[in-house]
C-alpha cells in the first residue's frame, strides 16, 4: 500500500494534520526535523516506515464522544507521545489501538486502525492476536496478585501453553533485563510480584508486556504513580526499548513528552489539535491552543 497516498487522501478534511504530514512526505526532511538523538544513523528510509496508522478514528461511550475523527501515523521504532489536559481523549485513543474498548460497556469504535496495512477492527481479525503484537502498560502497576515475579513475567507464554522451562527461563531473564529489573530481583524470582515496590512493580508490568515480544508498546501514563527516580529509570528504558519496538505513550508531563518522544500529538476535548515532531511542536507550535497548553496557560 502506498502510505503517503493514503495519508494525503485524508488531507482535505484535516488541515491541521496536513501541515505536519506534508513535511513528513519526504524522508530526508523527516530526518532533519526529528530530534537528533532519536534518529537512527543510516538511511532515512528505515526511519520513515509507518507501523500503525489511524483513519478517522472515533470512540463513543454511549451517546458521548470520547475521541473524534483522529487520523495519525505511528512510525516504526519511534516514540509517539500523546499529550493534553485530563479528559481530552488521549487514553481513550490509546486504548483503541489494541482493541481494549472491546470490553468497555457501551463503547463503540469507528474508523480504522491499521497495523502494517491491515485494519485491526476487521471482523476476521482476532483481538487476542492483535494484543500479543500490540502490548500495553497501564497507569497503575498491575502484577497478577497470586503469581510470583517469575510467573508474572512469563504469564503471557505459560498461560497459552508454552511450558518448556528453558524457554521460559530465557524469556524471563531477557524481559527482566529489558525492563531494567533483573539485577534487583534475580535472587527472588519466586517471591510474589506484589512484594515489589511501586516502581519495581511497574517495571515488572513492562517486563511482562515485553515477554510476549510485542511490536508496538502502548503506555498509559506509566510513570504517573511513581517517584522521580523510578520515573527516570522508566524513561531510560523507553529510550532503550525504541531500538526494538514502536512506542505510543500517554503522559500528563510535558517535560516527559519532550524528553522521550520523537513525535507528539496534542489532544483537546476529543480532537487532535496538532501533531508533529516533538521538537518543533514544543518550540514552534502552530496552533494557539497547543501553545497555551504547553506554556501552562490551561490544563
Amino acid at each position: 500500500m502506498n502510505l503517503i497516498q493514503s495519508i494525503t487522501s485524508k488531507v482535505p478534511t484535516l488541515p491541521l494534520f496536513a501541515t505536519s504530514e506534508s513535511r513528513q512526505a519526504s524522508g530526508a526532511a523527516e530526518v532533519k526535523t526529528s530530534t537528533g538523538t532519536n534518529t537512527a544513523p543510516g538511511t532515512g528510509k528505515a526511519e520513515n516506515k509507518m507501523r500503525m496508522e489511524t483513519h478517522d478514528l472515533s470512540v463513543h461511550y454511549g451517546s458521548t464522544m470520547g475521541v473524534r475523527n483522529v487520523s495519525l501515523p505511528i512510525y516504526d521504532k519511534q516514540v509517539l507521545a500523546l499529550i493534553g489536559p485530563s479528559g481530552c481523549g488521549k487514553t481513550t485513543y490509546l486504548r483503541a489501538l489494541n482493541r481494549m474498548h472491546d470490553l468497555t460497556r457501551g463503547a463503540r469504535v469507528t474508523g480504522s486502525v491499521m497495523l502494517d496495512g491491515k485494519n485491526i477492527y476487521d471482523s476476521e481479525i482476532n483481538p487476542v492476536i492483535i494484543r500479543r503484537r500490540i502490548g500495553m502498560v497501564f497507569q497503575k502497576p498491575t502484577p497478577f496478585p497470586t503469581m510470583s515475579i517469575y510467573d508474572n513475567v512469563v504469564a503471557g507464554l505459560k498461560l497459552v501453553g508454552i511450558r518448556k522451562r528453558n524457554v521460559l527461563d530465557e524469556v524471563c531473564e531477557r524481559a527482566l533485563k529489558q525492563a531494567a529489573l533483573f539485577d534487583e530481583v534475580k535472587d527472588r524470582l519466586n517471591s510474589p510480584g506484589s512484594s515489589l515496590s511501586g516502581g519495581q512493580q511497574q517495571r515488572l508490568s513492562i517486563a511482562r508486556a515485553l515477554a510476549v515480544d510485542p511490536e508496538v508498546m502502548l503506555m498509559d501514563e506509566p510513570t504517573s504513580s511513581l517517584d522521580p527516580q523510578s520515573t527516570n529509570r522508566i524513561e531510560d528504558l523507553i529510550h532503550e526499548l525504541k531500538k526494538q519496538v514502536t512506542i505510543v505513550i500517554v503522559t500528563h508531563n510535558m517535560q516527559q513528552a519532550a524528553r522521550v518522544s520523537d513525535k507528539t500529538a496534542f489532544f483537546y476535548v476529543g480532537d487532535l489539535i496538532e501533531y508533529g515532531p516533538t521538537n518543533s511542536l514544543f518550540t514552534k507550535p502552530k496552533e494557539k491552543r497547543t501553545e497555551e497548553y504547553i506554556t501552562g496557560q490551561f490544563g
Partner: protein
Amino acid sequence: MKTLLQRNIRDRIMESLLVLSTIVVLLPLVIILVHVVINGISALNWDFFTQELGSPSRAMQGRPTGLVHTILGTVVIDFLALFLAVPIGMGAGIMLSEFPDHKLNPTLRIMNDTLNGMPAILKGLLAFVLIVKPMGTFSGLAGAVALAFVMIPIIARTTESALMSIPWSIREAGLAIGLPRWRVVLSTVMPAARFGLVTGTLIAFARAAGEAAPLLFTSFGNNYLPNHWLGMLLGPTDTLPQRLYSLAISPYSHWHSMGWAAAIVLLVFVIICFGTARYLTRKKT
C-alpha cells in the same frame, strides 16, 4: 433548643434500644444451642455413631441403635450436591460478573434470583420430576440434585461478588499480554478471588446441609444402612435434617432424644462450615 441533659438522655435511650435489639437477635440462637445440647447430649454415645437406626422396637428392647447411616448419607448427598453445584454455580457466577454484555446475562440474573428465592420444597419437587419419576425410586442422587438446586443460585451470586471485587485492571492486564478472555478469568481473576469463592461455596454448602424440605420426597429417608455403597445413590437414603424431622414426630421418647442428638451433629456440621468461611475471609483482610 434542648438542654444538654435532655440530649444526653435521648442518646442513652437510643443506645439502650440498640442493645435491646442486639439481645433479641442473639437470644434465639443461644436458646436453640442450649436447648439442643441439654436435650441431645445424653443420646450422643458410641452407638449413635456406629449403629443404624432400625425399627422402633429395637430401641424399646434396649438393643443398640444409632444414626451412622444418617451421617454417612448426609455426607454422601451433601458432597455429591456440592460436586454438581460448584461447576454450574461458578459458571453462572462467571457469566454474571465477567460477561455483562452477553445477551443471556440479564435473563440469567433474573432466573438466578428467582431460583434463589424459590421455596426449597419446590426444588425437591423439581428433583422428584427430574430424577425420582424416571428412576422409579427415591434415591440419594435425587436428594443431591435437589440440594444442588439450593446451592447453585447462592454459589452463582457469591462467585459474582467475589469476582467483581477484583479490580478490572487485572483483567485488562491479562488481555494486554494477549491472553484469551476465558484464560484471564481462570488464571488471573479466579486465583485472586479464591478466598471469596471458597467462602461463598461453604456458605451455600452449609445452607443446603440444613435443608430438610427438598429431601422429603427425593432421598426420602431410610432406617437402615444399605448393603452396598451404591445403595446410597440409587436407593432411599437417610439425611440428618430429614431424620431429625421424622424422629421428632415419632411417638418414642428414645427417638426424641436421638433427634436432639442429630440436631447437635447438624449444628456442629453447619457451624464448622460457617466458621471456616469466616476464618478464610478474615485471613484475606
